[in-house]
């Protein structure tokens, strides 16, 4: 039986005036997964996250978290009781001290993890008496992460958690996240990023969003298995072949070379390629970055 879904959206839309930020977004995040939400700047990641948390009301479609409607006030309240969140701007109360911020947040969450609080205060070396306003961006991110992790949440939603951090601090954040998930309480993590490498590093599942739509989603290992690139080299100019094989995401023709990206394995593409009389055919390994770029490019060509 499939894992129950922690996040499920169907045809979600959000329009701001004349701009449609999210255009029929379908997303499914199973419980217990660590899902990277990958997309370029302005692809609709933050708007989607805000819809899930009830900060933005969708103009169409349905968004459910833990099976509860995210756009209903009561549902949203119940969702937020079980969710830890770090915003893109690491939005906190500048006028509070670190200690006040921790005490303030803890009061709202009956399942607040004092043990984790102590552990992360030490690990992140957070200065209790310092005002939030005075914290560096990295320390501020660590505090925001602590406040999300200690809620005892079933779901962590992190919007660009490593944005603006130097590589060393970004690595600390990712390691803390992985360690938290590895502690084994079944927390689902949904984090947005435009850093492909970090998604590849920690996520077991990925959803690629572009122009307000999910263009690729699934388990990372499955995607790596399914997606491939076939390079077909001809003696003369490459023919203008259409490639009707199911799963062909994109066909590029450059001089004597046809490059075919498939989301359904190499077999059917190889079979069709051979009918064209090529000089050579080669299956090239594909990375998440390639999958991302190909999916986004294919979406643009559509």
């Amino acid at each position, binding site marked *: 039986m499939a894992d129950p879904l922690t996040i499920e959206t169907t045809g979600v839309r959000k329009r701001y005036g004349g701009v449609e930020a999210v255009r029929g977004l379908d997303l499914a995040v199973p419980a217990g997964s660590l899902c990277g939400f990958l997309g370029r700047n302005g692809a609709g990641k933050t708007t989607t996250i805000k819809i899930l*948390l009830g*900060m933005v*009301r969708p103009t169409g479609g349905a968004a459910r978290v833990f099976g509860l409607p995210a756009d209903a*006030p009561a549902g949203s309240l119940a969702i*937020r009781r079980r*969710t830890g969140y770090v915003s893109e701007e690491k*939005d*906190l*109360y500048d006028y509070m001290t670190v200690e006040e911020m921790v005490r303030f947040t803890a009061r709202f969450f009956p399942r607040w993890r004092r043990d984790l609080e102590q552990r992360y205060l030490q690990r992140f070396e957070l200065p209790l008496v310092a005002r939030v306003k005075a914290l560096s961006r990295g320390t501020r991110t660590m505090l925001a992460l602590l*406040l999300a992790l200690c809620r005892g949440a079933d779901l962590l939603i992190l919007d660009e958690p490593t944005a603006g951090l130097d590589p060393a601090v970004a690595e600390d954040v990712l390691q803390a996240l992985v360690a938290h998930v590895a502690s084994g309480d079944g927390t689902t993590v949904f984090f947005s990023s435009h850093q492909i490498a970090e998604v590849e590093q920690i996520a077991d599942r990925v959803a690629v969003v572009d122009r307000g739509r999910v263009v690729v989603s699934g388990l990372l290992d499955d995607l790596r298995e399914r997606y491939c690139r076939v390079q077909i080299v001809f003696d003369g100019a490459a023919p203008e072949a259409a490639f009707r094989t199911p799963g062909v995401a994109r066909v590029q023709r450059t001089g004597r070379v046809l490059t075919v990206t498939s989301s359904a394995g190499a077999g059917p593409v190889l079979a069709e390629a051979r009918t064209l009389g090529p000089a050579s055919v080669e299956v090239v390994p594909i990375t998440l970055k390639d999958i991302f770029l190909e999916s986004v490019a294919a979406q643009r060509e559509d």
Partner: protein
Amino acid sequence: MLWYKAWLETRWRFLIGLLVLVCSAAATVFTYPKVLQLLPLVPPEGAGGELGRRITEAAALARTYRGFVWSQGFGQDLMRMVTLFAALLGVGGVFSGSSGAGSLFTLSMPVSRNRLLGTRTAIGLVELLVLAIGPALVIPLLSPAVGQRYAIDEALVHGVCLFAAGSAFFSLAMLLSTIFSDAWRPLLVTLAIALVLAFCGQVFDGSGEGIFGLMAGDVYFRTGALPWWGLAISAGTSGLLLYGAAATFARRDF
């Protein structure tokens, strides 16, 4: 804890307002001996024109301590400053930090928007009540220092009038803060509306029944009757404005 957050966000505006208003009330008391010395210089017939009429009226009021306190304190200085600080306390609405900082963090907490707005409103109104009543009570407290007496119950009534009318400006600033995302437009629009109302009150309405007439406790000063209708209308207006703020806040995207 939401109370604590609302207090932290508004405490400086409140404390500065309290200091300014208390100083203003004290200044009203301590300038009275000087005014008494100057009174004989005002010609009994008065000068001609609107200005002359006003000088004569002010001099007539200043002949009694009660009249002077009303005309200078409750009818002018305290009224204007309570209006200003009521607007300042309402500005920012639920997210009173600079530029709404912390708003997404607040919205991610398991708290309904109505509760957020309700807590912020309650704190703001309590602070406004202290700003209105506290300085009003300073007057009877300090009056013996200049050899005068001022009734505490009268000061209380004026304080309540300041609060009731001031709460309408507070509520207007709250409503505007749920509409605009910055802090300046709600403040400027609220103060502009207050200026227009004050101007209209001066030009079209001399009965003292406008919002500033209520704020000054005009009817109470002249007749001794409590302005129940004015208080009720002011409370109703504030309620409607706050209802509008809640409705706007509930629908707003962040």
